[in-house]
C-alpha cells in the first residue's frame, strides 16, 4: 500500500469526524502552544541578558586592585596601591590576547554648575576606555592621548549628571567645577541605562586618568585596568596570562595571595543567563505535561476509532490487507492527527508569544529550531500513543471483525 494512499485514507477518516478530530487535536495544540510560548518568553529574557552583556563592553576583562588585610584588618577592595600604569603598559606589550586596554582610577566628587550641585562618581581612564565599553558620546567629542599626557581639565559627562546640574542647558563647551577645579565639558555620554548589576551607568563623569590621579585623588597608582580580549574565547587565557604577569611584576611568592582581582563581568551575566535558561527548561517541561495529556487523548480516540471500524478492518483484511497494512493505517492516522495538532500548536504558540510581547511588553524570541523540535516531538507523541491502538487493530481476527456488529 503506497504512502499517498495511506495518507489519503487517514485524512478521510479524520475528516469524517471533524468535531472529534478537532477536540482530540486540542490537547496537542495547547501542549505545543504552551511549550512554544514558554520557550519564547525564556529565550526573550535570556536574549535580553545577552544584549546586556554585549552592552557591557567588548570581551571585557577587568583587573582591579585587590583587597588587603593588614594585621587582621580588612582594608576594603581596591585598597592596594600596587597596581600601576607600568603594569598596564606591561600587559599592553606582553599579552597579545588583549586588544585594547585602559588604566583606570575612580573617585567620588562634588560637581557644581551655577547654583546646581551633584555628587557623583568620576572615572579616570585612557582614550580606549570608551571603545572597550562601546560607549560613544551623543554630543561633543572624546579626549585623546594628548589630553591624557597633559592631564587636562576636560571631562565627559553622563546623562544623569547633566539632568541634575545643567538641566535643559547644553553642557558641551561649558565649564563646570569639579572639586573646586574648573573643567571643560567636551562631550555628553550616550545613555547606557542600568548596568546588569543594577546601578545607574549614566551617573558618572569620565576624564583622563592622569587628571584624576594628579588633580582629584592625588595618587600615583591605579584602581583598575579595563581590558578587551581579542575574542570571547580569549577571555579565559588572557585572564591567566595577565594574572601570571602581574604576580611576576608584583614579586609575589607562590604562597602569597594575589594583590589584585581579575574577573570578567560576562561570567556573571552568563551565569545569570544560565539560571534563566534552567528556569525556561523547567517551565517548558511543565508545559509539556499537557502534551502528554494530549497524547493520551489521541490514544483514547484511536481506541474508540478501532472499535467503531472493526468491520472495516475485517473487510480490509478479507481483501488482502496484512497486519502491517492495518497497523500502518491507524498509526498514520494518529500521526496525521498529532502533526496537524503540532502545526496548529506552533501557530498558537507564535500568536501567544506575540500577544505576550505586545500586551505585557516582555521580549520574546522563538528560536527556529524550537519550532522544528515541537513539530517532531508532537509527531513522536502521535507514534507513541498511536502504536497500541494500531497494534490492537492489526491483531484483530478477520472472522470476528467481519461478524462484529
Amino acid at each position: 500500500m503506497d504512502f499517498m494512499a495511506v495518507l489519503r485514507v487517514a485524512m478521510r477518516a479524520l475528516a469524517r469526524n471533524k468535531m472529534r478530530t478537532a477536540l482530540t487535536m486540542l490537547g496537542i495544540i495547547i501542549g505545543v502552544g504552551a511549550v512554544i510560548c514558554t520557550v519564547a518568553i525564556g529565550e526573550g529574557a535570556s536574549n535580553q541578558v545577552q544584549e546586556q552583556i554585549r552592552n557591557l563592553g567588548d570581551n571585557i576583562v577587568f583587573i582591579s586592585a585587590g583587597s588587603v588585610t593588614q594585621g587582621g584588618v580588612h582594608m576594603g577592595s581596591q585598597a592596594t596601591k600596587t597596581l600601576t600604569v607600568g603594569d598596564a603598559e606591561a600587559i599592553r606589550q606582553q599579552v597579545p590576547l588583549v586588544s585594547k586596554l585602559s588604566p583606570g582610577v575612580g573617585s567620588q566628587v562634588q560637581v557644581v554648575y551655577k547654583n546646581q550641585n551633584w555628587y557623583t562618581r568620576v572615572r579616570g581612564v585612557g582614550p580606549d576606555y570608551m571603545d572597550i565599553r562601546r560607549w560613544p558620546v551623543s554630543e561633543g567629542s572624546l579626549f585623546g592621548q594628548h589630553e591624557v599626557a597633559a592631564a587636562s581639565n576636560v571631562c565627559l559627562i553622563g546623562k544623569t549628571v547633566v539632568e541634575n546640574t545643567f538641566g535643559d542647558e547644553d553642557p558641551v563647551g561649558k565649564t563646570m567645577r569639579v572639586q573646586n577645579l574648573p573643567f571643560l565639558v567636551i562631550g555628553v555620554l550616550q545613555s547606557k541605562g542600568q548596568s546588569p548589576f543594577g546601578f545607574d551607568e549614566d551617573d558618572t563623569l569620565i576624564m583622563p586618568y592622569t587628571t584624576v590621579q594628579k588633580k582629584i585623588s592625588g595618587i600615583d597608582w591605579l584602581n583598575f585596568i579595563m581590558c578587551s580580549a581579542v575574542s570571547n574565547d580569549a577571555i579565559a587565557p588572557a585572564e591567566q596570562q595577565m594574572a601570571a604577569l602581574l604576580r611576576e611584576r608584583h614579586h609575589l611568592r607562590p604562597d602569597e595571595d594575589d594583590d589584585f582581582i581579575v574577573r570578567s563581568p560576562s561570567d556573571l551575566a552568563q551565569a545569570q543567563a544560565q539560571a534563566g535558561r534552567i528556569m525556561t527548561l523547567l517551565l517548558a517541561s511543565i508545559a509539556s505535561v499537557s502534551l502528554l495529556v494530549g497524547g493520551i487523548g489521541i490514544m483514547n480516540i484511536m481506541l474508540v476509532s478501532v472499535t467503531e471500524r472493526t468491520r472495516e478492518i475485517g473487510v480490509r483484511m478479507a481483501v488482502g490487507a496484512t497486519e502491517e497494512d492495518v497497523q500502518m493505517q491507524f498509526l498514520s492516522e494518529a500521526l496525521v492527527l498529532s502533526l496537524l495538532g503540532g502545526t496548529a500548536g506552533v501557530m498558537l504558540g507564535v500568536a501567544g508569544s506575540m500577544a505576550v510581547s505586545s500586551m505585557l511588553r516582555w521580549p520574546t524570541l522563538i528560536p527556529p529550531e524550537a519550532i522544528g523540535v515541537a513539530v517532531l516531538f508532537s509527531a513522536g507523541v502521535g507514534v507513541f500513543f498511536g502504536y497500541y491502538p494500531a497494534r490492537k487493530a492489526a491483531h484483530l481476527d478477520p472472522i470476528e471483525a467481519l461478524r462484529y456488529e
Partner: protein
Amino acid sequence: MREELVESKPDTEAAATSAPVIRVENVHKTYDLGEIQVHALRGVSLAIFPGEFVAIMGASGSGKSTFMNLAGCLDRPTRGRYLLEGQDVSQLTKKELAAIRNRRIGFVFQGFNLLPRTSALENVELPLVYSGIPHRQRVERSMEALRTVGLAGREEHHPAQLSGGQQQRVAIARALVNNPSILLADEPTGNLDSRTSVEIMEIFQRLNEERNLTILLVTHEADIAQYAKRTVTFRDGKVRHDVLIEGRLIAAQVLPTLASVDEDDEADASDGAEAQA
C-alpha cells in the same frame, strides 16, 4: 458409505481435464474455548474443480461457515490439509494468507461490507491497493469490473446512494477485480428481495459460464441453491450430501417471468440503505 457420498464426482468434464481448485483432505477445526472444545469440523474431505458452481448448505452450527472461513484462508485448519490450486495453504503465515486472499479469493458477504462514505470505484479498488497496483491501473481495472456487474456510470456513488442489489454488485466487482481463482459468497442474497436475488444469481451464472470462475455459494435458501450446479450439505461438522443439481434454474430465463416489481434503481436507493443498516 460415507466415502461414497463425499467422493461423488460432480462435474465429470472438469474433473477429467484439470486438477481441483480446492482440495481439502480430512480437515478438522477445533475451537478451544477454555473449558470446552468445540469441534466445528470433524474430518471434511472435498474437491472442487475449476468452473464449478457449488452451493454450500446446512443449518447454523453445521460447520459450513467454518468451512468457508478455511476455504477463504481467513483461518487455518487444526488438522488436515487444504490445497488451493495445488498449494498447501494450511500452514502458511498470516501474511502469506493475506496475500492469497488478496490475489486468489474474492469475497461477497451477506451485509455487502462496503466501506461507507467511499465511492463505488474506491471500494472496488481496495484489493488492488493492497496488491500495490499503481493508481491509474487500479482505476482502469475497477471501472472494468464495475462494467461487468452492470454498474458503469455509478463509479462515484457512495453505498448509501445505491440500492441493496447495486451495493451487492459493487461487492461482486470488488471480489472480481483481482481476477481470483475462486469466488466465495456467504449468503449474498440474504439481505435482498427475491427479484434482486435472482439478478445476483444471473451475474454469478454469467461469470461462471463466461469466465469459468469457480464459485462457492453459502445459502440456506433451497431455491437459491438451485442456481448452482452442485450442492454440498454440511451437518455436525461433516459433509452429509454432495450431489449434482438436476433441473438447475437459469437466472436469465427466470428473470423475465418475475413481475418487475420496481426496477427503478434510483427509487430503490433508500431501501438499499435500510437493508444495509
